[in-house]
C-alpha cells in the first residue's frame, strides 16, 4: 500500500509548544518578528466579569477584542496574538462555542489542593474550561486544559492562575538529510518493504528459531500515524490498536507509521499499540494506557526539550514511572550532534548578555543557508519543572542586527526553562545567537541550545558532548543513536553523550537509512529510525523466555540491557560517547558480559590514581567524571598511560580484549571540599567511591 506523496518533501515540523485548534487549524506563531512584547503587571488589571446568557458564555466586549498582548497579563504573548488573529480573521465567532484550544495552566501554589482548588475548578467550569488530565507527575501546579479560545484572557485573569501558555509538546527530530537529497530519494514503494538492517542484526537467525516477538505488546508514541490502517496485516502486524490522545484531528504525519513498520520488520508477531500525542500530558495518558494494556516495550522516536539534559524534568519522570512498571522505554538519542551548544551561564560584565564562548564571547555562530536561511533554536536550562527564579531569552542576530527574540512569543515571565525562536531571512551573512539574562543570577545555570531546523551551528563553537534530546538523558530509558546501514559508519548527526549528570549515553546505536513502504520515508533516516530497531530487538528477546512451569520467565530490564550490551558490536574508530556499547546485534548464543572495571589504585596527598579496564575496540574516555553526593559532575580526571589488562573473568573472555587505562585526579588541580565523591566512567557507567581529604 502506498500513500500520496506530499507536495512538500521537507518534513512538516511541529513546534514543541504550539497548540492546535480543535478544528485542526494550527494556531499561527510569529516568525521573524523583532517586536518586543510587554506583559502588564497583574495588579494593574481590572476585574473580569463573566456572565451567562442563553446557554452560551457571554464575554464583555473588551475581553473579546483584546488583540494586544498587553491585555493578556499572564497569557503567553504568542497565545494572546493567536487569540487576536482568530478573532480578526472572522472565521469563528468569539464565543465559547468557538474552537477549543489545549493550553497549559500554571496555577498558584495554594490551588493545588484543598478548598482553594475547588474554587479554581468552579471558576474553570464557569468559563467552560475542561481539565484534560492530571498534572505532570513532578509538577502538580501544571495543568493541561481545553478552553474556548475566546476565554483565554479571562482564564489568565483568574486569581489562582499564574500563567497560561501553549501546551508543552514533543518534536520530531530534525530531518538529518538535506531536502534535495530527500526529494531524490522519494519514490513510490509497493509490496512488502523490509528494513535492510535485519541481517546484520541477526534477526533472520532468531526468526528461524521461532523467535518472532509473538505476544509481546509494544507501544509506539508519535505525533502521527497516517496510513497505518491500510498496512495492518501487511507492513504492520495483524494486531494493531490505535488511540489518539490529542484533542486535534488525526494527524497527517506518517512518522509513527514508519517507526511501527520497522518494529514489525524485526518482530512481525508482536502486538502494536499506537498512541498519537501532541503534548506532555498526552504522553502521560498514553503511558497510563500502555500500563493498563500490559505493554512491555515503549518505542519513542521523539525529541523533547522539557528537561535540563541531566536526567531531570517531567519527561524523565515518566520514564521512571514506566520503569517502575517494568516497561522497557526505548528512545531516540536525537540528531543534534552538529547543532548543539551548552555551557554554564555567567554575566561577568553585567551587560545582560551571557558569556557563551571562550574569552567572554557573547555569541555563537550559526551556519547560514545558501539563499534563504531558516533558523529555529531552542534554549533550555536545568530548572525543572518550573523556573520562576530565572528567566532567559534567546536572540538571533545577523552580525549586529537583531533578527528575532524568543521574548516575542514567550514573554519574560514564561514559567518554564524553555524558549524557542525561529526566523527566516534572506542574505544572512553572519548569523549568531545570544542569550539574554532577564531575571535571577545566571551564574551556575547550565544553558543548552539546540538548532532544530536541521541546520548546524558553527563548527568551532558547537559542542558535541551532551547533545542528547530528552529523555535520552534518562537512566530509565534505553537511548539509541544511529549508524547508516549503507555505510556502516556512525551518522554524523547522531547525538553524543554523556548526560549532564555524567551518565554514559547513548546506550547503543542501531541502523538508519532503511527502507519503508511510506512515500514520505522511502529511506528512513535519523535516530528515529534506529530506535524502533532496538524496540523490536527487545521484543524478540522478551518473546524468547522460558516457559513450562507455573511461571514464564522473562528477562528484566537489566538483563535485556546486558544481552544487548554483550552482543553489541563496537564501530571501529568511533568515540564511545557517540556509540555506547556499539551497534545493535542480537545474541544467537551465550553472551559473556564484558564489563569495564574501575578501581581506585592509589590515594595520597597529591591526589588519586584510578585504573579502568576498558574494552578494546572503543576509545577509552578521555576523562573520568568526578561526581559529588548530589550526582553533580564537579571535576574530571584525565587519562594517562594504558597497557593490556591482566586475564580476567571466569568465562571465555580473552584478556587482550581489555586495556587498562590510568586516570589521575590531582589535588592541586581540583580543590574540592572534603567529602565523599564518585569517579565515573562516562562510557560504561562503572564507578568507584572515594573520600577527598587532602
Amino acid at each position, binding site marked *: 500500500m502506498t500513500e500520496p506523496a506530499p507536495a512538500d518533501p521537507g518534513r512538516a515540523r511541529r513546534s514543541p509548544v504550539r497548540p492546535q485548534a480543535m478544528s485542526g487549524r494550527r494556531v499561527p506563531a510569529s516568525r521573524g518578528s523583532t517586536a518586543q512584547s510587554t506583559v502588564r503587571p497583574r495588579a494593574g488589571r481590572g476585574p473580569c466579569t463573566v456572565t451567562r446568557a442563553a446557554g452560551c458564555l457571554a464575554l464583555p466586549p473588551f475581553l473579546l477584542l483584546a488583540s494586544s498582548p498587553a491585555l493578556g497579563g499572564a497569557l503567553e504573548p504568542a497565545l494572546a496574538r493567536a487569540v487576536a488573529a482568530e478573532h480578526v480573521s472572522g472565521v469563528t465567532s468569539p464565543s465559547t462555542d468557538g474552537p477549543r484550544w489545549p493550553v497549559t495552566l500554571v496555577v498558584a501554589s495554594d490551588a493545588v489542593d484543598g478548598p482553594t482548588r475547588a474554587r479554581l475548578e468552579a471558576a474553570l467550569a464557569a468559563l467552560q474550561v475542561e481539565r484534560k488530565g492530571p498534572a505532570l507527575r513532578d509538577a502538580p501546579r501544571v495543568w493541561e486544559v481545553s478552553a474556548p479560545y475566546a476565554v483565554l484572557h479571562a482564564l489568565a485573569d483568574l486569581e489562582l492562575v499564574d500563567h497560561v501558555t501553549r501546551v508543552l509538546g514533543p518534536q520530531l527530530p530534525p530531518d538529518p538529510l538535506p531536502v534535495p537529497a530527500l526529494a531524490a530519494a522519494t519514490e513510490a514503494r509497493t509490496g512488502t518493504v523490509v528494513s535492510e538492517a535485519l541481517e546484520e542484526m541477526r534477526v533472520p537467525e532468531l526468526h528461524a*528459531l521461532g*523467535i518472532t516477538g509473538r*505476544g509481546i505488546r509494544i507501544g509506539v508514541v508519535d505525533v502521527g500515524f497516517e496510513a497505518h490502517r491500510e498496512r495492518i496485516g501487511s507492513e504492520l502486524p495483524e494486531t494493531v490498536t490505535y488511540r489518539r490522545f490529542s484533542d486535534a484531528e488525526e494527524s497527517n504525519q506518517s512518522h509513527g507509521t514508519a517507526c511501527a513498520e520497522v518494529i514489525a520488520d524485526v518482530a512481525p508477531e508482536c502486538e502494536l499499540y499506537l498512541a498519537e500525542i501532541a503534548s506532555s500530558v498526552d504522553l502521560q495518558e498514553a503511558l497510563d494506557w500502555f500500563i*493498563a494494556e*500490559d505493554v512491555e516495550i515503549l518505542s519513542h522516536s521523539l525529541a523533547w526539550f522539557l528537561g535540563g539534559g541531566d536526567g531531570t524534568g517531567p519527561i524523565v519522570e515518566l520514564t521512571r514511572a514506566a520503569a*517502575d*512498571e*517494568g516497561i522497557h522505554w526505548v528512545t531516540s538519542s536525537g540528531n543534534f550532534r552538529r547543532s548543539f551548544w551548552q555551557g554554564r551561564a555567567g554575566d561577568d560584565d553585567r551587560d545582560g548578555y551571557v558569556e557563551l564562548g571562550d574569552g567572554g564571547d557573547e555569541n555563537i555562530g550559526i551556519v547560514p543557508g545558501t539563499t534563504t536561511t531558516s533558523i529555529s533554536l531552542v534554549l533550555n536550562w536545568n530548572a525543572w519543572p518550573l523556573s520562576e527564579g530565572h528567566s532567559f531569552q534567546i536572540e538571533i542576530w545577523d552580525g549586529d542586527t537583531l533578527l528575532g527574540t524568543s521574548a516575542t512569543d514567550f514573554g519574560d515571565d514564561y514559567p518554564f526553562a524553555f524558549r524557542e525562536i525561529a526566523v527566516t531571512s534572506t542574505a544572512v551573512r553572519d548569523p549568531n545567537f545570544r542569550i539574554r539574562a532577564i531575571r535571577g543570577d545566571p551564574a551556575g545555570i547550565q544553558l543548552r541550545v539546540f538548532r532544530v531546523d536541521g541546520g548546524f551551528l558553527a563548527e568551532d563553537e558547537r559542542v558535541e558532548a551532551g547533545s542528547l534530546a530528552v529523555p535520552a538523558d534518562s537512566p530509565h530509558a534505553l537511548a539509541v543513536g544511529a549508524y547508516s546501514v549503507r555505510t556502516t559508519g556512525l551518522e554524523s548527526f547522531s547525538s553524543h553523550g554523556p548526560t549532564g549528570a555524567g551518565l554514559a549515553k547513548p546506550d547503543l546505536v542501531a541502523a538508519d537509512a532503511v527502507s519503508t513502504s511510506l512515500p514520505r520515508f522511502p529511506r528512513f533516516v535519523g535516530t528515529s529510525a534506529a530506535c524502533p530497531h532496538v524496540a523490536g530487538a527487545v521484543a524478540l*528477546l522478551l518473546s*524468547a*523466555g*522460558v*516457559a*513450562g*512451569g*507455573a*511461571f*514464564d*520467565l*522473562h*528477562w*528484566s*530490564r*537489566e*538483563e535485556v540491557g*546486558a*544481552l544487548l*550490551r*554483550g*552482543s553489541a558490536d563496537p564501530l571501529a574508530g568511533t568515540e564511545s560517547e557517540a556509540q555506547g556499547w556499539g551497534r545493535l546485534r542480537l*545474541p*544467537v*548464543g*551465550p*553472551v*559473556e*558480559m*564484558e564489563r569495564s572495571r574501575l578501581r581506585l589504585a592509589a590515594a595520597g596527598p597529591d591526589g588519586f590514581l584510578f585504573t579502568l579496564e576498558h574494552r578494546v575496540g572503543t576509545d577509552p574516555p578521555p576523562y573520568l567524571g568526578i561526581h559529588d553526593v548530589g550526582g553533580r559532575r564537579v571535576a574530571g580526571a584525565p587519562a594517562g598511560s594504558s597497557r593490556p589488562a591482566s586475564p580476567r*573473568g571466569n*568465562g571465555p*573472555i580473552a584478556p587482550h580484549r581489555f586495556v587498562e587505562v590510568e586516570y589521575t585526579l590531582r589535588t592541586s588541580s581540583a580543590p574540592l571540599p572534603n567529602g565523599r565523591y564518585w569517579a565515573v566512567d562516562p562510557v560504561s557507567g562503572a564507578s568507584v567511591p572515594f573520600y577527598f581529604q587532602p
Partner: protein
Amino acid sequence: MSRDGRTGAPWQASWLAHLPAAIFTAGFARFRMAVVPGRRADGRARAVGPALLLALALIGASTPEVAAAELGASAGGAWALPAGGAIDDAYDGAPLVRLGVTLGGASPWSGAISVGLSRTEARPSHPVFVENVESRLRWIPILAEARYRLRTATRSPYVSCGLGLWHLRETFAYRLAGNDRETDGSRTALAASFGAGLEIGGSTRFPLRLGFRAEIASLDARTVTADGTAFEGGDRRTASWISIGLEIEG
C-alpha cells in the same frame, strides 16, 4: 479416632467443620488478589473472599450432620507426576506427602482436608542466549474432599472429589550474560480433584486406602523476571497432576 462409635467433642467438630470453608475461601480470595506489585489489584476480589467465608460458615454451623461428625487424621504418600497443561512433562515425577484431617461417621460419605507437599524440577527448553536453565517447582495442594464408599464391606471401592487450592512456588536458576542468576515466584490457584481407589479395613481403627487422585487447576499466565517483577499476561491455561499412592487414616 475411627468409626468405632466414639464421638468427638461437639464444639470441636463444629469448629473444625468450618475449616475447609475457611481455607477454601481464604485461598480463593488470595487467588483473586494475587496480583503483582505495580500492576492492577482487583478491588472486588477483596470482598469476595470474606463474603464467601461468612456464607459457608453459616451453612456449616446449621448442618447437624456436620456438627456431629467424628474427627480423624490421615497421612499418605504418593508418586506425583505433572500431567500436562501449564506444568509440562519436562518436569519429573516426585514424591508427594500428604497430611489431613478427616470427618466421617456411619454414613458412606466422609470428608477430609489435607495438605500435601511435593517438589519437582526440570530443565526447560530455553533460548540460545541463556545457559543452564533449571526450574525447581514446589507444589503444595490443599484439598477439601468428599469421599463416597461404594460398599459397607471391609474392602470397598471409593470415589472422591474435591475443591482445593494449589500453592505453587517456582525458582529459576540460569546463567545469562556471564552471570549466574536466580529468581522465583509464588502463586495460588483454585483446583479441582477427582479420585478413586480401594479402601481396606474400613471398619478398623486404621483404614487404608490405595488409589489415585487427579487434580486440575486453571492458571492464568504469570511471568516473573529477575528483578522481582511479576505480571499477568498471555492466555489462561490448565495444569494437572496425577498422584498414585497410599493413605492411612486413624
